[in-house]
């Protein structure tokens, strides 16, 4: 059943990508037009480093996926999130958020262990234990009330910690900004999360969790495509994401 869901999702995704991929319109070349007042060659020193530089050799593909995500968010994802917010009362949504945070804490614990960071193992481990028991399967965040700090570590950061660079910038369908390292890092994290879910939850609950997880994450992410007021939103998001991940690894 779960496999069917996954496959359906993939097929839907490919279909929707295909639907808007009648081939990109040809790009006009600056060289074919009169020079602007402030031409790049006049303003940018020949050896300049881009101020918001990020390694992005797959820009073309990335921009297409970025656009796809915009349409997906607008037509499907955000309406679903709004429906979820209308149907489930705020206390319930907080419970759902805590529930998934509990799994994230578990992943943080494992990844902190892989990075040999005992303090983070201790705090995320305590969080999981406290919230899974006193907090009733993670529905209540008792650990935060007890002032147990909440570090965040994922497998992308673990790879980074052991010296793997970010690699090319990558916009993931449905998910958004990432890079090759972090995208690959999602695989083991997701595998662990699903395996644990299967072990501890009954099948219908586990399935509902799989459906709810993206909705919950989206409901808790303020970002809206093309509503950030910058004509250069793609570049700004790329730069901020990369900078943030660099910092995440250094912590």
């Amino acid at each position, binding site marked *: 059943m779960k496999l069917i869901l996954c496959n359906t999702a993939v097929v839907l995704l490919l279909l929707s990508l295909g639907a808007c991929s009648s081939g990109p319109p040809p790009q006009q070349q600056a060289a074919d*037009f009169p020079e602007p007042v402030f031409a790049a060659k006049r303003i940018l020193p020949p050896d300049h480093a881009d101020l918001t530089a990020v390694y992005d050799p797959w820009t073309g593909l990335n921009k297409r996926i970025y656009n796809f995500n915009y349409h997906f968010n607008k037509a499907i994802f955000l309406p679903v999130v709004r429906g979820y917010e209308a149907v489930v009362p705020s206390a319930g949504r907080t419970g759902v958020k805590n529930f998934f945070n509990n799994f994230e804490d578990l992943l943080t614990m494992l990844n902190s262990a892989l990075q040999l960071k005992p303090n983070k193992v201790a705090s995320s481990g305590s969080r999981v234990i406290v919230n899974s028991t006193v907090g009733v399967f993670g529905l209540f965040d008792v650990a935060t009330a007890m002032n147990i700090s909440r570090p965040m570590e994922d497998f992308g950061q673990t790879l980074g910690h052991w010296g793997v660079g970010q690699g090319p910038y990558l916009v993931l369908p449905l998910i958004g900004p990432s890079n090759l390292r972090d995208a690959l890092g999602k695989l083991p994290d997701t595998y662990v999360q699903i395996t644990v879910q299967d072990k501890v939850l009954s099948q219908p609950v586990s399935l509902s969790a799989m459906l709810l997880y993206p909705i919950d994450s989206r409901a808790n992410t303020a970002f809206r495509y093309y509503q950030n*007021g910058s004509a250069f939103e793609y570049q700004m998001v790329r730069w901020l994401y990369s900078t943030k991940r660099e910092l995440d690894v250094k912590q």
Partner: protein
Amino acid sequence: MTIRKILQQCFIGLFATLFVSATFGAIISKEDYGYPITDRFAATVVGTPDGFQAALPESIPFEGRSITIFPERVTPDVFFYGSKLLYSVALQDSKAPLIFLIAGTGASHNGSKNVNMAKAFYQAGFHVVSVSSPTYNNFVIAASKTGVVGHAERDAEDIYRVFEMIWAELKNEIDVSSFNLTGYSLGGFNAAYVSKLDDERKSFIFDRVLLINPPVSLYNSISLLDRMTQNIPGGINNFNEFVDKLINAYTNTYNEGFDAGGGDFLYKVYQSLNLKDEELAALIGISFRISSGSLVFTSDVMADYGYIKPKGMELNRYSVLDVYNEVSLRLGFTDYYHEFFYPYYRADYPNESRDEFISAISLRSIEDYLRKTKKITVMHNADDVILEPGEIDFFPEVFGDRATIYPYGGHCGNMNYRDNVARMVASFGKAGGQQ
């Protein structure tokens, strides 16, 4: 312990001993003012610490809407997402005064400052209609007649058109007892010109108008902001290094993800660092440069002027814009005025020299109107970083007791401070009294 908490503790005691002046129109003395941040740059970056903010509702029915302003306009594909103007409303159930809010440079209808103003006015019983700055990407694309913004009268006409069209949609939905207007920063500057235009066209006949921290001369203010980027050690080419340095230092306390939004990001950087004034100025400069860069590019595409994008060349949603981003970050807003704005409008104003043209974009050019129009009030700060030395005197001179000048607050840093919010609402007289 965060800097915010330390500041809070230091000043709570001080605040408790202060008498808070409640009279109207005044130059508030330092002794009578409890806003805690006395450094003009820090105030601008940090805003109002938690313990000093006005009590505002957690949430209000602040609802995003959109409207087509120019049905005939073909939006360039690179801005395909911006063809409708986005705005927000918070509407009362029964008859109430309505207030229009205009955001500051590069800021949106749902940016944090407009949201806080909306909360204060909604709480006080107003219908609220919040619009983005005419310098905001979406406004330029959807609602600017020429796409070339920064012209006081023309921007006012664009805003007025937007107000009229929004009102045409709202008037069947709500019952309004009076129309009012406010704006902060450039939005305050805009509000003065919109008020003047309304006195001619009379679509609304505004009851009260409040200008919060407006520039006097737009050109002076943007020159000051442009120069702030010179505080980046090593100049703009070290932008990245400088930001990295700040961010690196800030990793120690950084825990939750940060926002591209500007305000919160700067605030968090400040919280974790003991920044010098030059560094704070550099941050303000960078923040301004990022929004002015985006604006200049947007105008260039909308007017197809050939400023940084070759004239005639069409960009679409998949075009790589990196090079325009890089160029725009290296140009000042003053460059835009001299090399794009002035040449673009020159033909329409053949008798004005460049200097006359630019100096006309100043509240001084409508001084007589401001002097005699009693419905307009001003709230400003003596230490505002976007005013040249002495420019603050313009306000008490012209507005008399309709101007309230605070000793601190930098540029809009004290807008959320409880005294300021109370006075902001009270500026609207009886309408603001319906708590």
